[in-house]
């Protein structure tokens, strides 16, 4: 408990993330109305009793949609971060450990993907794969993995030169052992920071992709498609964009604090 007090970021971050996960799991119970039920008579209804965040253009309850949207937005973000992280780390580790032409080839491939405008990749994937959650995760991961690959490789290269790793190597430790014992903890901090930022970036990217017709299939609510649908009514019904906007903000805040806390934790351990 003493650690808790010294690491408020971790405490608050964990609390927010736990709350978000709880909302995602139980939100449907909290929201009394069906997020996909239209009621044209209440199109763009202002916030009030019954509809704390008002209604969208089709008269759907924005509160219910934000609650349900948590499930999708968090699910997609976490899946994309996990997929990008695993793929990126593996590729980065292979490049960093193998060196030579393998490293060279992999890093050129990373350069190509990084240099390719992400939005075009998304448009193309949207048209080729079609809409849907799985395709959305694939498209976002296709853009996201490179950062992790670069990060892991960079850390590997710089750590390889450090004395204790050299020593472990000389002592006959196998490369995989070196990676697990020394390199992984060292990479964990920057990775956690990157991953938590990733969650925010992905929630925002999901909104941009909704705009292009890729993303959650209607009528499934996601914060991204809510933000996009509300954009046309920013002048008359700002609550349509504010509700998902705040949800996105809180999510990013929570994950950032969690990331900070984790980084601090990793820092004190090593």
């Amino acid at each position: 408990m003493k650690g808790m007090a010294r690491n408020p970021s971790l405490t608050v971050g964990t609390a927010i993330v736990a709350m978000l996960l709880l909302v995602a799991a139980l939100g449907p119970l909290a929201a009394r109305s069906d997020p996909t039920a239209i009621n044209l008579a209440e199109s763009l209804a202002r916030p009030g009793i019954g509809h704390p965040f008002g209604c969208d253009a089709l008269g759907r309850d924005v509160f219910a949609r934000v609650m349900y949207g948590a499930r999708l937005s968090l699910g997609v973000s976490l899946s994309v971060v996990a997929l990008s992280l695993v793929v990126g780390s593996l590729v980065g580790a292979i490049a960093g450990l193998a060196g030579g032409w393998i490293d060279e080839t992999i890093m050129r491939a990373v350069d190509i993907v990084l240099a390719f405008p992400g939005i075009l990749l998304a448009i193309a994937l949207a048209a080729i794969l079609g809409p849907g959650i799985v395709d959305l995760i694939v498209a976002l991961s296709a853009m996201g993995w490179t950062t992790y690959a670069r990060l892991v490789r960079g850390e590997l290269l710089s750590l390889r030169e450090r004395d204790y790793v050299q020593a472990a190597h000389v002592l006959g430790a196998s490369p995989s052992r070196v990676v697990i014992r020394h390199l992984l903890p060292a990479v964990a901090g920057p990775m956690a920071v990157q991953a938590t930022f990733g969650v925010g970036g992905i929630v925002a990217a999901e909104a941009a992709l909704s705009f292009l017709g890729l993303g959650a299939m209607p009528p499934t609510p996601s914060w991204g498609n809510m933000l996009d649908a509300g954009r046309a009514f920013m002048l008359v019904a700002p609550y349509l964009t504010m509700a998902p906007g705040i949800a996105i903000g809180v999510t990013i805040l929570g994950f950032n604090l969690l990331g900070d806390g984790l980084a601090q934790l990793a820092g004190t351990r090593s």
Partner: protein
Amino acid sequence: MRYLLRRLGTLVPVAIGVATLTFAMIHLVPGDPVVAMLGETAAPADVAGLRHQLGLDRPIGEQYVDFLAGLMRGNLGESISYHRPVAGLIAERFPATLELTIAGLVVGVLVAFPLGIVSGANPGGPADLGAMGFAILGISIPHIYLGPLLMIVFSLDLRWFPLTGRGGLAHLVLPAVTLGTALAAVIARMLRQSLVVVRESDYMRTARSKGRGAMAALLIHGLRNAMTSVVTLVGLQAGALLTGALITEMIFSWPGIGRLLIGAIGARDYPLVEGCVLTFAFTYVVVNMATDLLYGIVDPRVRLE
């Protein structure tokens, strides 16, 4: 110098890779430049005729080889929808994109430094919370939302800035802020992190115990340490910045290469799409080479192998 040559050498495979990826993607996407051009009422014979005229009826492999061969000679081909050489179109529009991107970068850095310093100097304090709150807000607002929001507040309500279009400095402010905000947030956070690490270091503990000048020492050491990270980050964010420029151009009617690209995709103007994407990719690579070089200047310990 040798390093620079080596880096320039890697440009070629990257360019070919990007060109190939673009070619594959745009051809895999359903739709056809001729149908997009002639519209829904075109006679099939006319569609076939125009396809032949544009060389689109040849085997895809042959088109690819032709395209690469042209590229090698520095020929980007002719736009299908503009009936003009792609290179000329890009040369016309690129300065606007460059202007916007640089302005976005400037806004990002100008906003990030005060924020990062304020929060890194006293982590956990109210200023830190405020600055990081702003940073989080900056990351969480997508361009497509922030742009119109800035327009409503600063153009419609306050009448400080023009709404859209390219012109003097006043025209540049809102798009640059739209583009630079997310970058500012990312850099500010990175700065804060660096300052916090320096603050906790033994060196700083000593400096602090001596009392005076602790703040100055923190800034000098912290910022010096942070510079390399910031430079790397700018390189890493160059792609995001360019993608952001694309959307920002759409919102602010900015006559840059992003709007050219979106229009070209809609028209399935293959040569123009390829030209635009290559320009984006080339810019990205050049920015990264520049940040690598800067790296050496900022941190002399880094040797460029």
